[in-house]
């Protein structure tokens, strides 16, 4: 299979995934959606008013027709209109919220990398020392700590008691970002550190490192230029595929820290019965995750021609 065929195939697969997600979300929200409780005040909820509203929203048509309209609109980039607020397109708000979530996710990954790489590398090079022991302790504890609980504890100590950081929200720029980024990044930190450590241990035992040593290269060049590069390949792979997990994790962190991201938008919208908003945001999320997974797969094939797309 040549590259473009492969690309086309993966693209179709990704579109299929998004279609399934969109369909699921559509039917689930139609089953749960109840516009009159969101859009009409109790006094307005007379039968004829409700009838008119349902007609305006197109909810009086058969479900299958609604589904067709929904897909048609989606194909034209119309993701629907929020049932709350001044009737702006749902996509407008989603953009801002998604940017906020991306910022949090990026900060979490940066925090994880900044600690995990040095710890993992040093732990591998100094096996059995205090640093190695520390890294394993961090790994074991970090993997077992519930992130929402860690978030609450940090709010209590560093925000309420010490007053170093705000208790939530994103009004204070960088200072608002630190606690949620740590709570979100801890799990990634552990994963990256373990991968780095085992990758480094493996690579230090290979022939090309022995060759580099035999050539008389300094330890610095051997580790910095040869070993680390090799050991980081799996880390890059994992980061590429961790987006879904990060988004899932950020939902709960956003709730704990009142962070105005897309996860919180979806949860708020669910509780407020704003189903067009729920549909639009979940579809946008699923599409972005599918897109990133697609790019990761495709870029492997570009980087490493040995990978054949047989049965991935």
């Amino acid at each position: 299979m040549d590259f473009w065929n492969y690309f086309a195939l993966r693209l179709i697969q990704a579109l299929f995934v998004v279609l399934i997600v969109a369909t699921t979300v559509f039917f689930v929200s139609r089953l749960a959606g109840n516009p009159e409780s969101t859009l009409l005040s109790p006094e307005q909820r007379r039968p004829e008013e409700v009838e008119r509203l349902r007609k305006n929203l197109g909810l009086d048509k058969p479900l299958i027709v609604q589904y067709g309209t929904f897909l048609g609109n989606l194909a034209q980039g119309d993701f629907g209109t929020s049932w709350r607020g001044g009737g702006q397109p749902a996509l407008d708000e989603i953009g801002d919220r998604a940017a906020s979530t991306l910022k949090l996710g990026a900060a979490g990954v940066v925090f994880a990398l900044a600690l995990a790489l040095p710890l993992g590398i040093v732990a591998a090079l100094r096996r059995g020392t205090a640093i190695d022991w520390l890294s394993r302790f961090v790994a074991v504890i970090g993997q077992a700590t519930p992130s929402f609980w860690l978030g609450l504890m940090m709010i209590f100590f560093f925000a309420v008691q010490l007053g170093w950081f705000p208790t939530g929200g994103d009004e204070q720029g960088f200072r608002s970002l630190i606690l949620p980024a740590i709570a979100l990044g801890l799990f990634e930190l552990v994963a990256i550190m373990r991968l780095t450590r085992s990758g480094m241990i493996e690579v230090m035992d290979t022939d090309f490192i022995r060759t580099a040593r035999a050539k008389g290269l300094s330890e610095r060049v051997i580790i910095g230029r040869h070993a680390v590069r090799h050991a980081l390949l799996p880390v890059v792979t994992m980061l590429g595929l961790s987006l879904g997990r990060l988004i899932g994790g950020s939902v709960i962190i956003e709730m704990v820290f009142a962070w105005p991201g897309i996860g919180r938008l979806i949860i708020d919208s669910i509780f407020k019965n704003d189903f067009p908003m729920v549909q639009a945001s979940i579809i946008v999320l699923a599409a972005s995750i599918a897109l990133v997974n697609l790019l990761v797969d495709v870029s492997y094939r570009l980087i490493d021609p040995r990978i054949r797309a047989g049965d991935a």
Partner: protein
Amino acid sequence: MAGQPAAVQLGPGRGVRWRRWLGLSVPALIALALLVAGVGADWLAPHDPEFINLGARLQPPVFDGGSWDYALGTDQVGRDIFSRLLHGARISLIVVGIVVPGAALIGTLLGLISGWAGGLIGQLLMRLVDVQLAMPAILFAVLLAALVGASLRNVIIILLIWTWPSYARLVRADVLSLKQRDFVTASRATGAGPAWILRKHLFPNVVNSIVIIMTLEVALVILAEAALTFLGVGAPPGTASWGVMISEGRDFMSVAWWPIWLPGLALLTIALTGNLMGDWVRDALDPRLRNLR
């Protein structure tokens, strides 16, 4: 017998063996304690976990100036925290007991079928995995809760949907390589049907991996259940569940540390135990999977 050589040490040294033994027995004891706590909560709990006693609100634990009446203190409405922890352990046990074997069963079956059948069915199943990967389960959970209401049953359903793909992917990958092996070809050549091959040749070769994932998933499932409950998707408020206790203790965090610390520590300890036992099982069954996660 003369001339017998001095004891040659074959296995690992004493220190290593000692540490291995400790590494298994401590988590095993904690797991046993959890089991006893969950099963025997009705007999062990000194108080009714849902009995509200406003006269005894926020009593500190006995080691922080409290009394033995409430050994681990009480929460904001005077419920005994020790009793609530015991009953919370039961909820965690129920969830793990259904979700882990259930997801293993679904994932293994689908992985076996899609790996063996390949072609269209295999592709379809893998797209199902993709769908699951692209849709953050936690959001789907909240959506489902809005639809049918928050309950323990829904959390269990969600966690099943959430966790089966890890089994399916591993089993499928194993089956894809196993079915090229000579012993499978030989079996086919002698006229064995697919059901026979699946049962006699493929399943025994993947069962180790399945057991390893199952043990590693225990902690994940317990943490996920607490997180979902914290979000309001799981057991309803007031229930003696660790997630509920943390979310209710949150509002009194600055007045009293114990209502939120104790269930959090319980969660951490159990998750830690699950991970340690999972690592142990993995090393015992298949050290090649060291980098599984």
